[in-house]
């Protein structure tokens, strides 16, 4: 039995990342952007685990880093959503393009 080639994981994660990035770039809704970011983070996680499993002599490092990333993602989500909430309360919108007070 041969294991699944590493490149397949990497390409999978690359696609996942690209899709997430696409969402981040194109979504008008801030929540949509957050979703895109979640996807990107997951793609990164896959890479972390895959590389540590395949390449690294210490296969646990990737997993541990993924734990950290998940926690940080949770933090980011919490803070990000709080910001979105505050934004909505102040400006009654969650559209990214409506929020441009820093323009000029």
């Amino acid at each position: 039995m041969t294991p699944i080639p590493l490149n397949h994981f990497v390409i999978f994660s690359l696609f996942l990342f690209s899709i997430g990035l696409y969402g981040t770039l194109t979504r008008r809704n801030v929540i949509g952007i957050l979703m895109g970011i979640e996807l990107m983070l997951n793609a990164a996680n896959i890479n972390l685990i895959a590389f540590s499993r395949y390449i690294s002599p210490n296969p646990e490092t990737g997993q541990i880093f993924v734990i950290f990333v998940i926690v940080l993602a949770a933090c980011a989500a919490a803070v990000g959503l709080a910001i979105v909430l505050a934004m909505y309360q102040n400006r009654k919108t969650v559209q990214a393009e409506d929020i441009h007070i820093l323009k000029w």
Partner: protein
Amino acid sequence: MEILYFFAKTGFYATALVTLAAAILVVTLRNLFHCALALILSLLGVAVTYLYLKAEFLAIIQILLYIGAIMTLLIFAIMLTHRLTDRSVSQTNRQSLPAFALLAVFNIFFIASLAAVPWKINSASLAAKIDTQALGAFLMGPYVFPFEIISIVLIIALVGAVILGRTDQ
């Protein structure tokens, strides 16, 4: 038994396909609620991918944590979007085409460069079994410092979120 492994491998590719399909739905669907559900599916797929990488603990953690996170997202999606079904409003901005083009170029370059890399596979690592206990020992051993830092960051984020989200009474 080979056939089972074949099934298993096929299962991976199927999962990957489902995951990517769901991800595409996430970024293209108009309805945010649907997007979120698609995201769940996508994340589930990632969890399964973890299983293929023999990271059971992480797979479960992925489900456990992201469900809560996405539930929250859903709530926000509902609370903060008035016109979920309003078809007249575009959900994407005007840069989808350049974004797509750029990403396509990016992917092409990436894959092209990837093919040129000869990975040195570490077979010992590949075969190693890392159960939850071992992970815990690592977390409490060599990685205890980042672990503690992360917990502090978590607390800070928590407090920050509370303060940001508080309405001025």
